[in-house]
């Protein structure tokens, strides 16, 4: 069946590959582009481990075909630390012990960033709803919420957006 050329700008780099139409974006990112920070945790669009940012929106990359993302700007966890400086969310997750096994973490970070971009001062309930598309088995979520609150405060103090 049909093969397609897919060009994306990923974490600031322009990349082009030729793939089958059925290639899932998460496989495109992990296998074709070699960025394995984005993970696969389920097969029913349930867990959010595959969350990436496409044209500024947080999306589950297992439920998008790579061809749909042709021409898009994609950001994954590998692109969060600008110029080697950790993003306040990465700092927050580290400070507040917002991760244990680390497998859901990339997806959580991207989701959290999208949440804070839309809602810079979320309540606890808004945070919990905001990350309800991302499952974690290790942390019980409390410290993920605290990590996001840490980042919101830090970004707010710096007058920055997420």
């Amino acid at each position, binding site marked *: 069946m049909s093969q397609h050329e897919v060009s994306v700008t990923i974490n600031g780099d322009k990349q082009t590959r030729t793939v089958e*139409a059925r290639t899932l974006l998460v496989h495109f990112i992990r296998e074709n582009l070699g960025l394995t920070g984005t993970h696969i945790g389920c097969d029913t*669009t349930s867990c*959010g481990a595959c969350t990436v940012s496409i044209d500024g929106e*947080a999306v589950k990359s*297992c439920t998008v075909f790579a061809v749909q993302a*042709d021409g898009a700007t994609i950001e994954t966890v590998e692109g969060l630390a600008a110029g080697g400086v950790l993003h306040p969310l990465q700092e927050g997750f580290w400070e507040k012990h917002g991760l244990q096994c680390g497998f859901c973490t990339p997806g959580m970070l991207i989701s959290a960033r999208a949440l804070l971009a839309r809602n810079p001062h979320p309540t606890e309930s808004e945070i919990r709803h905001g990350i309800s*598309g*991302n499952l974690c088995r290790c942390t019980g979520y409390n410290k993920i919420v605290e990590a996001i609150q840490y980042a919101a405060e830090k970004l707010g103090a710096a007058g920055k957006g997420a």
Partner: protein
Amino acid sequence: MIPAPFDYHAPQTLDEAIALLGRLGDTAKILAGGQSLIPAMRFRLALPDTLVDIGRIRDLAYVEERGDHLAIGAMTREHALEAAPVVAASYPLLLDTAKVIADPLVRNKATVGGNLAHADPANDHPATMLAYGAQIIARGAKGTRTIAIDDLFVGLFETSLAPGEILTEIRIPKPGKGSGGAYLKIERKVGDYAVAAVAVQLELAGGAIKHIRIGLTNVSSVPMRAKNAEAALTGKKPTDDVLDAAGKAGAAECDPSADLRGQVDYKRDMVRVLIKRAVRHAVHRAQGGKP
């Protein structure tokens, strides 16, 4: 889980899309948000030979009040409904609904048009559009036509859209003074389909319910209105007794299936309880109450 291979087209215009669908016939499926279709393809439950991706067609995503109705482009993402000030201001039933569809990530991709065209009785918009008495605009090779929402859902996963016809716009009549609406959904957890859900849109006059439409989610094989419940409420003041009778009528007229979400008697009783609560909330909003 890996989908089977398929051919893929991404037309730039609606006419191109319609022409493609005409040429390919039922071997092709429309790809909108993909949040229902792609999971089905990953389990090889859906096996289209070709996907026609309408995601590149310009001007299919908008949320605008146009005089007497709210016009929603079919490719509008669910999140856009959550974010649109006009929806929060004047269409609380729609906002309630958008907030409980799947999860926030899925809502960035899933489309209103897709949610309706899939005709899944478990989806949330069908009940809400039934409650609003919405209209659907569809365009095909023979031109454009309007379909009343009451005529859209004809069977399980089946709409009255003709082969090669694309749903392009949804029109919700602007609610008049004294109107209120609410969507209440019971789900096993956030992100799940409804155990049962009720959409209510009503208009009060002189303390009584002048008009009311009630849509039900996931308690029938075809999205349905609770017409007996509506009849029990129309022209009446929303007292406890009236609400009780309406709830019972709604419970009796729906047709839930037993599954992992619940037994039939439980689901019926949830319809009964939710009708009462949703009508109360809609009345509260009709009287100017917030939220």
